[in-house]
């Protein structure tokens, strides 16, 4: 068997289209996950105690089961409860829910890491709760959470490959289809690995750049 790169090149337009779907699902899914995760963390922190417990269960359920199982249940099990989604929508919803559970825990750890005194100082100069959240807590958390947020977002990219199981026309599905058709698994999956890796490196590089830019905001020694 030869390493047939020509095959990959001849299907490049298809592969690029699939790459586009992967990137779109990754970015939109991560962004929504970060947003929904933030809302969950805020509700759990500032809402009534019952709400905290009510949100704890789904977060733990999502964190406690494989993404593959979740996405399978959502796509194939959804219609039984009247939730018929096309594969891309199901993929995006699934990614968002999955990401939100993890991101909400990151946000939660961020809230806990802000020194109480920084919030008290804001209270003392008259900032209300919303102003304190917006002007003090959020920016401080961004700085504290950046490395772990980047890490989770990298994981989100790799989880998009799972969406091939429900036929989302993303990169892994496109390449494995080629593999099956032309028996070119090695070429396909080698390219696949390189592409994911390149995306992860790009994401990490952006994260490192942001960390460097934010480094002067680090907590002062007292």
């Amino acid at each position: 068997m030869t390493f047939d790169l020509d095959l990959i090149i001849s299907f490049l337009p298809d592969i690029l289209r699939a790459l586009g779907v992967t990137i779109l699902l990754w970015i939109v899914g991560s962004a929504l996950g970060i947003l929904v995760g933030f809302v969950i963390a805020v509700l759990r922190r500032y809402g009534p105690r019952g709400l905290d417990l009510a949100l704890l269960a789904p977060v733990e359920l999502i964190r406690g089961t494989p993404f593959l199982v979740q996405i399978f249940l959502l796509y194939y099990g959804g219609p039984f409860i009247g939730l018929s989604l096309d594969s891309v929508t199901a993929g995006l919803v699934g990614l968002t829910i999955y990401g939100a559970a993890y991101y909400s825990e990151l946000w939660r750890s961020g809230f806990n890491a802000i020194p109480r005194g920084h919030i008290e100082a804001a209270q003392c100069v008259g900032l209300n709760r919303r102003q304190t959240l917006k002007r003090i807590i959020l920016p401080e958390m961004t700085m504290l959470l950046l490395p772990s947020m980047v890490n989770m977002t990298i994981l989100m990219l790799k989880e998009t490959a799972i969406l091939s199981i429900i036929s989302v026309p993303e990169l892994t599905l496109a390449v494995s289809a080629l593999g099956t058709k032309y028996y070119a698994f090695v070429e396909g999956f080698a390219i696949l690995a390189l592409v994911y890796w390149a995306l992860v490196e790009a994401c990490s590089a952006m994260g490192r750049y942001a960390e460097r830019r934010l480094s002067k905001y680090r907590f002062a020694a007292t």
Partner: protein
Amino acid sequence: MTEKPAIKVEKLVKRFGANTVLSGIDLVVPRGQVTCLIGPSGSGKSTLLRCIAFLEEANEGLIEINGEPLGFTSGEYGERNRLPAAQIQKVRSHIGMVFQQFNLWPHMTALGNVAEALVTVRGMPRKAAEERAMAQLSNVGLSARAGHYPSELSGGQQQRVAIARALALDPDIMLFDEPTSSLDPELTGEVLNVMRELAQSGMTMLVVTHEIGFAASVGSKIVFLDHGEKIVEGRPDEVFGKPRHERIDQFLDTYLDRGAATLL
């Protein structure tokens, strides 16, 4: 209003669970003077200050700031009624607070820290707020450091920025919670100097401190707390001079080397 004391505390009780930290404290802080709260660790002096800053809510008793009730009023039958948030905020705006840990916001420059509430709370335009913040920083001798972040400042500089941040809002009472306790002896001096100048300008100050020398020289009134109770209160010479209360003697012995204690 002028005849009312700046701060009046009546029968204040604060418990944390089963632990009573303040057991019925009465305190009057006269206007335009420096009142120092001293006492061993765990005596309740910081908790008292935090209750006056409304960072802690007392369980019983009342606090008045410039004659206005803070947080609670006493009802017809002696019950306590909580005041609306806007009223609490209004009374609180008379007070500036300085913390042991400085508590500057790390993502803002020194100037940003001082200007923040002027813009966000007072609604001043950014430019005007920064001009006022700059004036405050130059009062504490830090105009050259305005663009630095807290992580780029020494502890003493951070605390001076924190003082400028509180003063920018034009409070008429300043509370200090062990402002020099996390500083090296070398840096303590620069913060105490700023506080001395502030005292000379006629600011009403309530200072929790372990700096007995500062308390004795700048304080008009010393209040000694122990186990949540006020033990002694008076002018520095009355409190530290001889004959002195037995607990003060013990305190000075344990807190200072004897050489410093006999200087008083």
